[in-house]
């Protein structure tokens, strides 16, 4: 499979992402899977800001950014324009972070999926508002420290569970929804190619560790992403026309503490709090049939 990967880089070096950035790797791999015939509608966020400091751009594909909450709406316009021009073979791709997808951009995304536009929506999920310096989003995991869920005497980290956006999009009846991880590039690329081959709205939710945001050394970025999957904290699956199947099943699930203790954002957790997270992970894995 790796041989089939295109050599060409459609996301140029020299962009200003932090060293070891998971989100930019997700974008780089996604563009490798999709190729040149795309038009990207990108929401405000880390990827947008680090890749287009005027007069430079890292994008080697057509790209437009309008605002934070409308990547899916802008993509709808691009898709409609291509359709009205009768242009075939160009895939419209909306790209946004977890905040731009699960919070401020959810309405535009829901509208675009409900209208059935032929486009791929990619969410690079680094689990907080990283561009503005690590504030909590609805996709921040339970217990995590961020600058707006600090660890204090009264409150300790995020007190709500991570919002399950793939389930919300699947509930719209989208023909193809999948989760992916930068630590499993082949799985990621396969899913993006399936999305590209699917007519109608598709949604790919990519788990992207963020060294400065999750408080770990940059060289461990892939290792952290891998451990999320091996521990069941992040489950790799796809939902095709409503039917879910897990694409990567860890042979023997690692304890979630192995994943948590690599990251400074969880270092305040007590054994009891870790046990609570383990319980929810076990329950979720049972629910999805992961061992």
């Amino acid at each position, binding site marked *: 499979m790796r041989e089939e990967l295109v050599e060409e880089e459609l996301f140029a070096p020299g962009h200003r992402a932090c*060293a070891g950035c998971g989100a930019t790797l997700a974008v780089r*791999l996604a563009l490798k899977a999709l190729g040149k015939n795309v038009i990207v509608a990108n929401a405000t966020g880390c990827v947008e800001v680090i890749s287009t400091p005027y007069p430079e751009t890292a994008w080697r594909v057509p790209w437009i950014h309008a605002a934070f909450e409308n990547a899916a709406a802008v993509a709808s316009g691009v898709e409609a324009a291509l359709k009205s021009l009768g242009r075939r073979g160009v895939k419209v791709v909306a790209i946004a972070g977890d905040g731009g997808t699960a919070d401020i951009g959810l309405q535009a995304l829901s509208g675009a999926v409900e209208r059935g536009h032929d486009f791929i929506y990619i969410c690079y999920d680094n689990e907080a508002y990283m561009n503005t310096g690590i504030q909590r989003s609805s996709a921040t995991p339970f217990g995590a420290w961020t600058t707006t869920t600090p660890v204090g005497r009264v409150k300790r980290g995020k007190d709500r569970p991570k919002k399950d956006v793939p389930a919300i999009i699947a509930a719209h009846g989208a023909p193809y929804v999948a989760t992916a991880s930068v630590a499993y590039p082949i799985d990621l690329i396969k899913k993006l190619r399936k999305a590209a081959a699917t007519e109608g709205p598709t949604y790919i939710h990519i788990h992207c560790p963020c060294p400065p945001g999750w408080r770990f050394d940059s060289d461990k970025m*892939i290792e952290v992403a891998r451990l999320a999957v091996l521990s069941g904290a992040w489950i790799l699956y796809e939902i095709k026309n409503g039917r879910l199947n897990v694409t990567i099943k860890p042979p023997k699930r690692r304890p979630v503490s192995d994943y948590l203790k690599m990251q400074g954002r969880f270092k305040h957790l007590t054994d009891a709090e870790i046990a609570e997270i383990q319980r929810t992970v076990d329950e979720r894995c049972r629910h999805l049939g992961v061992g």
Partner: protein
Amino acid sequence: MKLTPGAVITEPGSTTRYQTNGWRTFRPAVDSGKCTGCGLCWLYCPDAVISRGKPPGVDYRYCKGCGICANECPAKAITMVPEERG
């Protein structure tokens, strides 16, 4: 440099004008003897500075020294060595 109306950038991939090597304090050193040419370093590099091959090439103009390649190399053929300041 004449500005385009609406700030349209008409030169794709032009961030290559800006070299990010100054960001790193460590750089990856490749031991070609150990390298098996598996290409994982190329695949995992967020900045696309590694070119495939046995041993892989590293474009030190843009490498930010994040260390992922060294951490992920199955053959332990890449080690992060301190960036010697001239």
